[in-house]
C-alpha cells in the first residue's frame, strides 16, 4: 500500500526499511479505522435525540485494556525485531574497506564536494586552512603524494552497482543532511564530525530512468534535508550508478583527465 507513495527502491536495505514502515502503517491504519468505527457508532447511537438520558456508569467493559496492551506488544515487536537491528546495521556493520568503494563527501553551502581516493585507496591529506573557494574547495594539501591520484568532483557522485559504498561524511560550515531518497539513506553532516554512511546500490541510473514513464525524467539525486541557509532548497547533487564496467571506465577517464590537467595547471 505504501509503495504507492514511496520512491523507487534502489539499494539493498531499502526494502527492509520500507517493510518496517509498511508494518507500522498497517498497525496505524488498523488502530485508526477501529477507533473511527467505534467513534462513529458512539456518536450516532448516543446522540441526544436517540439517547435522551445519559448512563451515569458509562461503559462497563474494560476490553480497552487489552487493546492498549496489544498496541504496546506490537510496538515492542516492531522496535526489537525490526527497527533496532535495522538501524544498528546502518551504523555498525560497515563494509570492509577492501570490498567497498570509499568516498569522502564534504558538504558546504550549497554544494557537495566529492572526493575519491583514487587507485591507491588512500585519501590525500586535507586542511581547512588551505581551502580556497575557487581553486581548492576541499583544502587539499598538494605536498601529500597520496593525494596525487585523488579524483574530485562537485555535486557529481558516481557509484558502482552492487558494490557497497562507504561514505565519509563531513561538512565545512554548517549542518547539512545527505539524502538519496531512492537509496533510503539520510545522514546529517555535523561540523567537527566524520560520520560513516554506507549502502549497496542495486539499480543503475539507466534501470531507473527506463522504469519511469511520463514526465518523471530525473535520475538519482542527492537532496539536502537540513536547513543550511538561503540556498538550502537548491543544494542538489546528482548520483550516477554505473554498471561495473562503466564505472571502471568512468574512473579511468577521470584519472586520465587528472594527469593531463596536472601538467598545465597544477594547483596543489
Amino acid at each position: 500500500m505504501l509503495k504507492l507513495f514511496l520512491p523507487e527502491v534502489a539499494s539493498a536495505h531499502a526494502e527492509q526499511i520500507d517493510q518496517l514502515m509498511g508494518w507500522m502503517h498497517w498497525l496505524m491504519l488498523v488502530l485508526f479505522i477501529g477507533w473511527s468505527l467505534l467513534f462513529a457508532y458512539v456518536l450516532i447511537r448516543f446522540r441526544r435525540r436517540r439517547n435522551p438520558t445519559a448512563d451515569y456508569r458509562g461503559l462497563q467493559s474494560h476490553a480497552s485494556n487489552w487493546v492498549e496492551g496489544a498496541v504496546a506488544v506490537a510496538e515492542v515487536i516492531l522496535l526489537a525485531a525490526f527497527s533496532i537491528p535495522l538501524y544498528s546495521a546502518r551504523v555498525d556493520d560497515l563494509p570492509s574497506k577492501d570490498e567497498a568503494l570509499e568516498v569522502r563527501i564534504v558538504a558546504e553551502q550549497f554544494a557537495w564536494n566529492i572526493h575519491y581516493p583514487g587507485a591507491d585507496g588512500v585519501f590525500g591529506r586535507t586542511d581547512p586552512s588551505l581551502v580556497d573557494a575557487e581553486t581548492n574547495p576541499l583544502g587539499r594539501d598538494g605536498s601529500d603524494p597520496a593525494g596525487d591520484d585523488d579524483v574530485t568532483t562537485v555535486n557529481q557522485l558516481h557509484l558502482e552497482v552492487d558494490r557497497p559504498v562507504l561514505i565519509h561524511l563531513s561538512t565545512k560550515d554548517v549542518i547539512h543532511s545527505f539524502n538519496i531518497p531512492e537509496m533510503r539513506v539520510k545522514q546529517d553532516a555535523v561540523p567537527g564530525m566524520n560520520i560513516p554512511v554506507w549502502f549497496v546500490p542495486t539499480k543503475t541510473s539507466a534501470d531507473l530512468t527506463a522504469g519511469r514513464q511520463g514526465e518523471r525524467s530525473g535520475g538519482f539525486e542527492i537532496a539536502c534535508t537540513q536547513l543550511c541557509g538561503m540556498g538550502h532548497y537548491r543544494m542538489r547533487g546528482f548520483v550516477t550508478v554505473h554498471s561495473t564496467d562503466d564505472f571502471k571506465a568512468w574512473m579511468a577517464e577521470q584519472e586520465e583527465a587528472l594527469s593531463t590537467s596536472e601538467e598545465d595547471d597544477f594547483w596543489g
Partner: protein
Amino acid sequence: MGENHETTHSEEHHHQELGFWRTYVFSVDHKVIGIQYAVTGLSFLFFGFCLMLLMRWQLAYPGEPFPLIGKLLGDSRMPGGIMLPEFYNQLGAMHGTIMVFLGVVPLAVGGFGNFVLPLQIGAPDMAFPRLNMASYWSYFLGGVVMFLSFFVPGGAAQSGWTSYPPLSVIAESGQTVWLLGMVFLITSSLLGSVNFIVTVIQLRVEGLTFMRLPFFVWSQFVTAFLLLLAFPPLEAAAFMQLMDRVANTSFFMPAGLVVSGQLVEVSGGGSPLLWQHLFWFLAHPEVYVLILPALGIVAEVIANNTRKPLWGYKSMVYSVLFLAFMSFIVWAHHMFLTGMGTVMSAFFQTTTMIISIPSVVIITALLLSLWGGSIRFNTPMLFALAFLPMFGIGGLTGLPLGLAAADIHLHDTYYVIGHFHYVVAPGTIFALFAGIYYWYPKATGRKMSEFLGKLHFWPSLLFMNGIFLPMFIQGLAGVQRRLFDGGVSYAHAEPVLFLNKVMTHSAWGLAIAQLPFVINFFLSLKRGEKVGSNPWQATTIEWLAPSPPPHGNFANVPVAYRTPYEYSVPGQASDYHPQFEPDRRVAGPPDPGEPEAAPATA
C-alpha cells in the same frame, strides 16, 4: 480555609478605585490577565497564520510575483513582488516560533490557565498576582521584540525555529534579537509556572482533593511542571548562543569551519550537538505543553456535553503524570540522524514507544467517555470531538518517526510537518476553539452564536485536512521540509508536486473559514445571548461564579463536595450535580468536614 480572609471577603467587595490603567492594563486580576494573554495570543496566532499564508503561496507558485501585496513588502524581501529565499526562511522560522511560543502556549496556558484555573479550584485569584502581571508583561515584551526582529538589518531569524548552530551563529543580527526575545518568553513561562503550581497546591478550596480536581486543572498543573523544569536548559543554551554570537565564544563551534571560503576565526572546541540536546530537552516537553491543556479543555467539554462522568478519570490522571515524566527522556528522537550509535538510539526509541502508550490511554478514555452519553452537538463539542481523530492521526504518525530505521526515510520531510501539524493545528487549535466557545459566556456573560460557530467548524475541518493530509504523501515521497521552492527542482518531488497547490488553496480556504469566527467573537460581545452563571449546566466550580466573575470571584468561599463530573446521577431530578452544591437529597446544613470522602470515578 484561611480564617482571616473569610471575613474580609464575604462582607463586601471593597471597591478601591483602581482607575483605568490598573483595572484593564496593569491589572493583577487573574481574569484580566487571562484575557490579555488570550487576546495577545490570538493576535499572534493570526500573525503566524499570515506568515504561513505567504509561505504557502510561494510553495504553490514558486518564482512568480505575488499578487497585490507582493510589492508592499519591500525590495529586501520581495524584489518585484518575487519572494527571496532569505525571506522564506524568515517566514518559516518565525511562523514556527510565533505559533509555538507566542500563540498557542500563551493562549492555552496564559489565557485559559489564568482565566479558568483559579475559578475551577474556587480561588479568589492566583497565588502571586503581581508575579502574574510580570509574567504577562514579560511575554508581551518578548512578543514585541520578536515582532520587531523583522525590521532589523538582514531581517528576522532565519535558521528555523530550532536555530541549529553553526548556521544560527553565523546568521544575521535577527538571530540575536530572536535569542533576546526567547529570554523574555522563558522568563515569562518560568514566573507563570511557579504561580500555577503554587496556586493549585495551595489555593484549592476545602474538599477539593487532588482526585477531585477537574481534568483541566490536572493538565495545567502538569504543564506547569514541564515548563518549570524544561525551559531553563533552553535558557542556558540561549545564553551560550548569545555568547557565541556576541562575545565570539565557541560553545557550538568546532575548530576549522570554513564559511564561503573563509576560515572562521573562533577558538573552536565547541559542539553543535550540544545546542540540539539542550534545545530538544525543552522542545520535546514543549510539545506536550502544546497538547496537555488542549486535552484538558477537551475533557471538560466532553464531560459536559455527554452529560456523564469521564470514563477512566483516574487512569487519565496517572497517564498524564507518567507522560510528563517520560517526556523528559525522549528528546533525542529528534536527533537520530546526527550520528547516534546503536545503544543510545535504542534507548531513545524505546522511551519514545513507551511514551505513546499513555497518550493512547488518554485518547481511549476520552473516546469511551462518549459511550452511554446523551451527546449534545453544540459548537464547543464539535471542536472537541473533531480533536480526537485529528490528534489520533497526528499521534499515530509520530510512531514511525519514533523508530530510528523508519526515521531515516522520514526525517526532515513533510511527513514530520504533517505529523506535528495534525497534533497542533486540527488538534490543539481546535481544542482551543472549543475552549473559547465554551468559556466565552463565563468571560463575557454572553454566548457566541451557534450558527456562526458551525459555519466556522465544518469548513475548518475540511480545509485542515486538505492542508495536512497531502503532507504525508509528499513526505513519504521524500520531499524535504524548509524548501523555498517546494521542491520543484527535485526529481523525487515531481510526482507529488501538484499537491502544493491543493494545500495552498486549502490554506486560503482555511483563512476564509476563520471569518465567521472573528465576526462571531466580536459581534457576540454586544449581540450574544445573555446568560446566567451556568449556561451549560455544568458541574465544575467556575460555573458558580457570576458571568463575568467580579474581582475576587466568589461571593462566598465555595466548598467542593464531590468529584468534578457528577452528571446524570441516578435518582436525581436534574442531570447535573455541581461540585459546589451540597447534597440535594439530604436536608439540613452540609457537612464540609469530610474532604476525604471516596471519589466516585469509574
